């Protein structure tokens, strides 16, 4: 436990350092990762490491491995847009969606099991209305009918959800 705590602080420190140095051009993925590791406050950076994302043209998921280390390989793929994001079981909320705003090519989003996802989060998903095809909102206890009414703004989506 102590060792992983050290790793936590090391990676957190590393990512913060990374963000302060000028990255040119700032690619979408790197920004995503940096945000993921910095902005989810109670982080539990540990939880954010379990989030996966996948690039277009590549059917490989970028995720943290068993020991909690996140490989920086995705940095090799600058300027490609992210297609699938799985932030299941994290503490992502309405403010956290800021980070995904630029992902114009997003096709799949999974927020299954996220305790902080509520109706306001769903109402903000309209920004993916043209491209989102699959949305998984299973096991989100704070969603209600009012939020589902907001989902009508997503045109092509095929929604899976389960209380």
């Amino acid at each position, binding site marked *: 436990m102590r060792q992983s705590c050290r790793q936590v602080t090391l990676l957190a420190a590393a990512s913060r350092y990374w963000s302060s140095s000028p990255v040119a051009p700032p690619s979408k993925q790197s920004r995503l990762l940096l945000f993921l590791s910095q902005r989810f406050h109670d982080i539990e950076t540990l939880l954010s490491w379990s989030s996966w994302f996948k690039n277009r043209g590549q059917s490989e998921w970028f995720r943290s491995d068993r020991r909690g280390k996140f490989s920086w390989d995705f940095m090799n793929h600058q300027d490609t847009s992210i297609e699938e994001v799985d932030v299941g079981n994290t503490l992502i909320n*309405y403010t956290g969606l800021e980070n995904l705003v630029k992902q114009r090519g997003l096709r799949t989003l999974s927020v299954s099991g996220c305790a902080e996802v509520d*109706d*306001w989060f*769903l*109402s*903000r998903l*309209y920004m993916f209305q043209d491209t989102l095809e699959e949305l998984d909102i299973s096991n989100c206890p704070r969603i*209600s*009918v*009012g*939020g*589902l*009414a*907001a989902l*009508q*703004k997503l045109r092509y989506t095929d929604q899976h959800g389960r209380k």
Partner: protein
Amino acid sequence: VWRRRGECSAACNILQHDRFGGGSVMVWDLENQFKAFREKAADAMPGSDWTPFEKNSSLPPERADIVIVGGGVVGWSIAYWLKQKEMIRDGVRVLVVERDPTYSQASTVLSAGGIRQQFSLPENIHLSMASADFMRNINEHLSVLNDDPVDLQFNHSGYLFLASEKVAHIMEENYSTQRYAGAKVSLLSPTQLKEKCPWINTDGVVLASYGLENEGWFDPWMLLNAFRRKAISMGVYQCFGEVTGFSYTTNTMTTAEGDKVDFRRIKYANVQMPNSLEYQPVECAIVVNAAGALSGKVAEMMGIGLGPKDTISGIPLPVEPRKRFIYVVHCPNGPGLDTPFLVDYSGVYFRREGLGGNYIAGMSPEEEEEPETNNLEVDHQFFQNIWPHLAHRVPAFECLKVKSAWAGFYDYNTFDQNGIVGMHPLVNNMFFATGFSGHGLQHSPAIGRAMAELILDGGFKTLDLSAFSFKRIMTKEPILERNIV
């Protein structure tokens, strides 16, 4: 004095039983003694609530710093924000006076409960956006320890405004104002509209404006109760009674031209108990008029509007009650879960209510056909004006059945249908927060914050609502809101 002594000895006796279980030794608990002494000293100071006589406890306190006339959502929002912003604990004593404990005629609870950012005035747009932000994080603001979290039952369906040929240019201008202010609105052409809402008949529609975020409707009673519960937990006094008059002092000053002007200062607000002649004059420093549809009457009690015709004191507060009807209809094949709050260019509006195929619909009548406001009776004939427009716009509504209806008052600002927020120029301690003409509920959190800033900080800090001051009524410069429903 007897009471206090009795309490002291009780404290001693209890301790004696606990520790020694009998015996005649008097144990003096020093802590309790000091506490009792402090309370006694505070009561002896002038300005405390102690009286030697027994009082009817439903009367308000004899002194309060700020008296808010009107216990609707605007009044309680102001009370909450005043307590939220006070710098020290018990810094201001706030009293909210509400005439009707059942809220049977209150505009707040009879409202359709919608919130939208689609206004033409930037101030209104910012007010709505700030209120939506507040409602999104409502539990951070209004949750009370050990009590249930607040659930506004917010439906995020958005508002859909339809424009005909004649008013399409206004809609486009409004759209750019709204986007500039930061509201998330989109414009739709008739084909896009038909694709989005297949149940609509786009005949006559040239342009549609749809709110993407922070728009929809919610339960006004939940919001009112959330504000009330939180404010009471922060120490706001609540009194059920009617403000029947004010005692004020007058200071006459002469202008440069030699005209005499009366500056009044409210000293006491007389609060009369319901169904009784008993009243309590509450000595107060500031009075906030948040009485909604009855604000005009409260202002008259101060003589606002009763002066000579072409002076400032002759200008009344231009807020009067206007009755509006809402009809609950049931249509089995109507538009489904995704129905937005639709507002047609003819003035008819409707929204989904619940999940059983029910909708609520209404329309603002023409100026000449305004109904009587001495009661809240519903005119069912009026629905015959609404139905043709509904059926034209949504063909499924050709076969519907009116299940029930109710009526409520708008606190209608006859001058320009926008809120009046700020101090009266001649009565220097009366503040207005009224005249919202149908959008008071959706702006209430932001209005409460603005009023608290005005009263406690001396000026608006987060949102500048100086455009809504009483000054525009004196100078006869209306700021018209073009998107009134």
